């Protein structure tokens, strides 16, 4: 098991290195940091001198090494627009995105597990057919369209819920949270439902199909032959086996969810990292874009590594032999 974890972490580091390299390459190909510092009025010779001083004429790999040194310390460039450290900008936006993702993930887990299990054990029931029908419609509606539809119905027509922003937030030691005010919650409802709207049906379908496959196994038939309670057969024997593939796919889907925050945050002007990224693209703020790439890359890599390790913990076969 230990060897397994070490190997996964080594892989994660390699992936992170590649992401940093891509980020650095992008940064190199845009904009001239010297012009940014000096303005246009400085002569070419002087600019060249500054380039030398800043080490911008060093070989590519040397500069990359320097970039990595900075990155490890948390320096991944300065935003053109905000005129401050890109990492600080991102960190100030992160709580908004994380709160949104947390709420959506909660919605997804609370609804997908019982609905998925039910429609797997009673595939022919009317309610299951309804759930399955609803879920295929669900996966066919883009997140931003769900968001727009909700805004139109609940904000424009009914005036029930606010259509944009995070509302009133409370600063908890640098973490601006919307969880502590009623206004914050009201603002959170629609964005989190919109964000979960496409993943929820995906997870219901995933759980259902995995569970149905598991139910075909001999050990389920054997569990029935042992005379166990139906609940125990479904939850302990079947669902526990369903969990493994669901965790693996779930890890991948978390990445998709972060991508969808870009869409959701754009619609609701939710002041999170995704909205910031789209603004950075529109403003041509390359350092901030690259910083976002690296931070999101790090999140993905960490999540996937953790998921793999959890998978190893849940699956006794991996736990003992140390390999998949």
């Amino acid at each position, binding site marked *: 098991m230990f060897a397994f974890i070490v190997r996964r972490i080594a892989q994660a580091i390699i992936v992170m290195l590649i992401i940093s390299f891509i980020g650095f390459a992008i940064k190199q190909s845009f904009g001239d940091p010297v012009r940014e510092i000096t303005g246009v009025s400085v002569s070419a010779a002087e600019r060249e001198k500054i380039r030398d001083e800043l080490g911008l004429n060093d070989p590519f790999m040397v500069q990359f090494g320097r970039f990595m040194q900075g990155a490890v310390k948390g320096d991944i460039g300065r935003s053109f627009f905000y005129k401050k450290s890109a990492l600080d900008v991102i960190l100030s936006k992160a709580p908004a995105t994380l709160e949104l993702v947390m709420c959506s993930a909660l919605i997804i887990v609370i609804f997908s597990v019982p609905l998925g299990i039910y429609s797997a054990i009673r595939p022919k029931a009317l309610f299951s057919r309804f759930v399955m029908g609803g879920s*295929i419609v669900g996966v066919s509606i883009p997140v931003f369209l769900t968001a*727009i*539809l909700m*805004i139109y119905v609940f904000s424009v027509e009914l005036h029930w819920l606010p259509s944009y922003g995070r509302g009133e937030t409370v600063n908890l030691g640098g973490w601006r949270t919307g969880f502590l005010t009623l206004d914050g919650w009201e603002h959170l409802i629609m964005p989190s439902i919109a964000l979960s709207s496409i993943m929820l049906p995906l997870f219901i379908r995933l759980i259902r199909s995995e569970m149905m496959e598991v139910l075909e196994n001999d050990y389920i038939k054997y569990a029935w032959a042992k005379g166990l309670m139906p609940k125990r057969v479904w939850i302990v024997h079947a669902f526990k086996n369903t969990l493994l593939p669901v965790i693996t796919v779930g890890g991948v*889907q978390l990445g998709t969810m972060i991508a969808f925050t870009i869409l959701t945050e754009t619609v609701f002007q939710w002041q999170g990292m995704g909205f910031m990224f789209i603004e950075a*693209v529109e403003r041509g703020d390359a350092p901030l874009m690259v910083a976002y790439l690296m931070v999101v890359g790090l999140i993905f890599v960490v999540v996937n590594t953790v998921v793999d390790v959890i998978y190893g913990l849940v699956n006794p076969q991996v736990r003992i032999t140390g390999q998949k």
Partner: protein
Amino acid sequence: MKTRSRWQRFKESYFLHDFLHDKVALTSFCILAVLLFMGFAAPLVAPFNPYDAHNIDIMNAEIPPSWLPGGDTTFLLGTDAQGRDLFSTMLYGMRVSLIIGIGAVCLQAFLGIMVGLVAGFMGKRVESILMRVADVQLSFSTYMVAIFISAIFQAMFGVAKYEEIAVPLLILVIGFAEWPQYARTVRASVLAEKKKEYVEAAKVIGLSQKRIMWRHVLPNTLSPVFVISTIQVANAIMSEAALSFVGLGMPVTQPSLGSLINVGFEYIFSGSWWITMFPGIVLVLLILVINLLGDWLRDFLNPKLYKG
């Protein structure tokens, strides 16, 4: 006895029988056929040409659908914010969405099948590296990859130039973002096929690797490829719409369904819901019928798809 024609055999197959007896599949297919026709024949079907400035009068902006008060019978579904006939604009938009969706899937399939075949056949080092790359890219979610690549392209080319070459660029971006799906599926079925006796037999009679790969193994991997292709078209159309919605896709001057929804969005606050809703409905309908057909196809062919 003369062998029956291909068409006759098809007519008697389970495939057609099952298809004709599945109401959902049949209805989906009909709707899809209509949408495809309307999309590709947009210049012939649409009452106006939205690309033609002569047809556009800003005074006509935001006219509601014809059946609502204030509606104009010339514009069946009303007009958008620039005074273009919404119905025509939508048809042209659907054409753009379809071209990008199908184009991107062709590219994905090409890349993915190549990688999958090579990985499945070469085995060992090459395989583990290629599949690791596919896994990593997949773990970053195709949307994320597509958004990043197009953001970089836009920053590189500048907005004006980007909009000019948006169609091929989007095909490239979405095509590149989703190849791992194909690669994994193809590799899985190549591995399954390789174990079968006919490949062993082909080797024994001395056929070359290449020939075995192209003539024997590839055709047998096509059924899962076929199944994921339908779903992938829906995904590609959805990706394009998402990119266009955040302003990384098609420009307003040459709108796709996604960019129509995007420009219409701000007008729902003033009550002009139709500019967003009609393209939205068409987009959902298009994706839904493709997904339903894909579902049916998957249930029917039931290939072992690579999961996870």
